[in-house]
């Protein structure tokens, strides 16, 4: 199966990150997570497990929630990416972040950026989620402090406020 080791050339990748055009040079198999953190300095997305189990590296890729540790950067070429740093550009920012603060939805904070992006994705698909919808929407995001009830409460609160507006 193994081919002789060949060094791959870097290629140019352009995409929109948090609404801003970015052009970077990267090896095509570099993980989107590493490019965001190292080349662009956006350290909100965290590496937890590095295998798509924990969701702490969640970002939105063309509006779809993805684990950025599982995306080779070339597959994000031409895409629009939203990270936690860009969520302030998003109309869901205030209700969700505010609700996480109020409900104690963040403890150590490692899972929080991913939780909020998963919640943004959920509320776009289901503006009035039931508890089961929230559980399902966030099922791929693990909180090792185990503060799940406060997180679910925060998402429900943000959803109510958003709908009430």
């Amino acid at each position, binding site marked *: 199966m193994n081919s002789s080791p060949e060094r791959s050339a870097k290629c140019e990748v352009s995409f929109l990150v948090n609404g801003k055009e970015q052009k970077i040079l990267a090896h095509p198999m570099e993980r989107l997570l590493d490019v965001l953190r190292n080349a662009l300095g956006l350290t909100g997305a965290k590496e937890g497990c590095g295998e798509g189990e924990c969701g702490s590296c969640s970002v939105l890729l063309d509006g779809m929630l993805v684990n950025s540790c*599982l995306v080779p950067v070339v597959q994000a070429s031409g895409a629009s990416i939203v990270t936690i740093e860009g969520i302030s550009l998003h109309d869901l920012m205030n209700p969700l972040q505010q609700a996480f603060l109020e409900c104690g939805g963040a403890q150590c904070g490692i899972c929080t950026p991913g939780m909020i992006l998963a919640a943004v994705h*959920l509320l776009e698909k289901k503006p009035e989620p039931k508890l089961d919808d929230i559980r*399902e929407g966030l099922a*791929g995001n693990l909180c090792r402090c185990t503060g799940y009830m406060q997180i679910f409460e925060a998402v429900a609160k943000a959803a109510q406020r958003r709908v009430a507006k």
Partner: protein
Amino acid sequence: MRADPADYRLVSPGNLQAVLSLLANEPAQWLPIAGGTDVMVLYSAGKLPNRKLINIWNIPELRRIEVLPDRIRIGAACTYTALRRHDIISRELPLLATAASWTGGIANQNRGTLGGNIANASPAADSLPALLVYDAELTLISVRGERQVPYRNFHTGYKKTVLAADELIRDISLLRRFSKYFSHARKVGARNAQAISKVCLAGLGQVTDGTIRDVRLALGSVAPVPLRLDKTEQLLTGNKIDPSLIDIARKSALKEIRPIDDIRSTARYRSAVAGNLVAEFLEKLAAEGAQA
């Protein structure tokens, strides 16, 4: 050790013919990558044997779901999210839509693909028992042409398949003749979401006047490949469901499976659960038949 991205090539030909040419010109060298939910895990851990990858995420033919009068043809790179959101799949092939909802969390459903689940050939994959009971058929394609393979003949052993080195799975076809069947799926794992199954079952059945006219049962994680319970189905067909038939089915299922001990469970537990899932399916099928 963590992989160094400089050691790996990833090309994006952008069309199917170019992908097939690469696969044919350097057989067994190139690994297709779609949503990356399996490939990237191995890659990150430094355990991916291939150093050359072809991006098939952006090939339009592989992302289509075609609804034909007699069948639904699902492009191999359709995601679990696409399957879950498809009205006709949800209505007529509910076992597939349910399995898609079990596979990972939302982020992995947005990237994981049905073709990837098949090619990865894990006996624990949640969607595969559903494909078995629906008699899915795969179209395999290469520069040599295309061929149809019943899904039940695709897996030949643990992580082994009939896919040739130059072939790609193009689509998965499912007949539209099971929408009137009673269907039931059950996954037993450590946790509902994101956990890999200890045992999973997909079942279809038709009962008239209390008698089983047709029954289809498949189990995951109980053998080196996802398993259709042919012998048990034969024993059941034409009979009325009662406690003694359920007992016969349970014993027959245990003879058909070959479970092992591994990190997720034990052979003993898997046997007990497999028998219980078959019994549970039959009880539900009987209740359904009694209502009809």
